[in-house]
């Protein structure tokens, strides 16, 4: 009996040992052993122009990427070492589009895709939003909490470009879209909510502007172009909302004498009341504190 319990204990420890020493993260599929060279951080190649390009592929990233069970050669097809592959944003999107055809077509119709077709390298394409590092090797699924496309993170992902005043100035986007969104009820509700998907049923950038087919607000087919379109977009959540409801939106801008002046004057009025009354109260309190302190000190 004693011996039996000893076996049990040993077996238990052995099992724990296996769990501790032989667990490993899931490994990405690498049938051609590409990572034995490309997993090396120092691996570079010199282009014809004389520039150095890193050929490093982070094994850590690939192991957690959503495509980890798709072999390297699925995308880097045929003879990867012999094929001259043009490496630009458009070719990257095309590659994603060989499988994700629907999303690719929507993307090409979007303001980002249209610019991409015209050779503008500034715009976002697939990997810019779907990977934290903007790398096709670390694309993760939309519903993972740390995905840049997870609902709670979307505004921050758009902000990577759209909160860059210098970059946006080139496109005539002068509104501080990220800041004003975060100040809005939608932004506050997303920010103050947790990561649970049940708490994320609030509008973020993509709910109004679209995502794969995101349109410029100057494009008449944009869901936010004009009050009629905007009202229809509001209605998706605010049942029965009309044009009048939509007209209350300040349009990512501060209220001013030019932009919804009534709100601007309301703000001015309440700010003056607030400052006057509090200054008056503070004066009395400070005077009282001084007097009571002197009284105490003299006593």
């Amino acid at each position, binding site marked *: 009996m004693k011996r039996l319990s000893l076996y049990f204990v040993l077996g238990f420890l052995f099992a724990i040992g296996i769990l501790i020493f032989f667990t490993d993260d899931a490994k990405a599929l690498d049938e051609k052993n590409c990572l034995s060279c490309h997993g090396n951080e120092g691996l570079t190649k010199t282009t014809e122009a004389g520039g150095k390009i890193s050929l490093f592929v982070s094994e850590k990233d690939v192991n957690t990427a959503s495509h980890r069970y798709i072999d390297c050669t699925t995308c880097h097809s045929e003879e990867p070492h012999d094929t001259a592959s043009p490496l630009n944003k458009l070719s990257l999107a095309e590659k994603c589009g060989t499988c994700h055809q629907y999303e690719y077509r929507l993307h090409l119709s979007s303001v980002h895709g249209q610019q991409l077709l015209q050779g503008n390298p500034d715009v976002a394409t697939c990997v810019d939003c779907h990977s934290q590092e903007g790398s096709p090797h670390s694309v993760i699924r939309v519903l993972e909490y740390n995905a840049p496309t997870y609902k709670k993170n979307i505004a921050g992902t758009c902000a990577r470009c759209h909160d860059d005043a210098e970059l946006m100035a080139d496109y005539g986007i002068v509104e501080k879209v990220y800041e004003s969104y*975060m*100040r809005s*009820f939608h*932004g*506050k*509700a997303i*920010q*103050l*909510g*947790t990561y*649970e998907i049940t*708490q994320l049923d609030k509008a973020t950038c993509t709910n109004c502007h679209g995502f794969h087919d995101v349109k410029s607000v100057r494009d008449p087919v944009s869901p936010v172009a004009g009050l009629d379109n905007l009202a229809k977009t509001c209605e998706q959540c*605010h*049942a*029965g*909302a*009309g044009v*009048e*409801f*939509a*007209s*209350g*939106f*300040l349009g990512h801008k501060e*209220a001013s004498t030019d932009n*919804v002046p*009534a*709100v601007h004057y*309301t*703000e001015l009025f*309440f*700010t003056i*009341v*607030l400052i006057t*009354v*509090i200054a008056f*109260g*503070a004066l*009395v*309190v400070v*005077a*009282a504190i*001084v*007097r*009571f302190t*002197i*009284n*105490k000190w*003299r*006593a």
Partner: protein
Amino acid sequence: MSAMAQAASLAGSNEEKISRFDVHQIIQHAGLMVSFVILVFTGLPLKFHDWAISQWWVGVWGGIEVTRTAHIAAAWIMLAVCLYHVFYLLYTILVKKKPFPVKIIPGPSDFREYYQEMAYYLGFRKTRPLVDRFSWKEKFDYWAIFWGMPVMFISGFIMMYPVFVTKFLPGWFVSAALVAHSDEAMLALVWIVLVHIFFNHFTPGHLPLNTSIFTGKVNVKKYREEHALEYERMTGKPVVEKPVEGVPPGQVNLPDGKM
């Protein structure tokens, strides 16, 4: 100290209490206080949404849906308390035929009282002003609610039912309501913390808690100091010294340093 004032002071031993508030007023204040605190605790994280503590605090409540529900529930309680007060007022005047509470209505005496109080704090006067049933600060607190409550209720209602409201009102009302709600709330909170709590609880003689609004009773001696004019009327014992040459009239005959 005059003989008369001494007698009055002797009469007002520590045990004796004067009834200042009735049970309805105690309930109304308690209801207002509890709902106000809940509203502040569930509303502030929205105002300071980018502070890390706000996100933690909303998490403590169990998410933004919970704070929103609590905020709305507390708002309805506050509205109920205000309606209770209005009906209580009408009932006491119209049914019980009690005189209209004129003492809460602001008048020129409040400006005099304010001026005298500031003069005392700044060292231009030896004594604090004589106060009737309500001090100017109490009147300010009371009437501020008559301004603040409608602002908060209307703006809050607009934000609760924006789609419904914009069927009748222009769309900018919703954006304006947010501004009004947010600023008026800050005004109320800062005033309550800075002025109301300071003068009612943190001043010498009251620290740490002035219980009069919770028990309805005030110590006779304290009453004589704080509401001298009403005390005189109630007891017939004058607190004010007869005018003496060289001493300006209207000074309270209290030991120095007391209030």
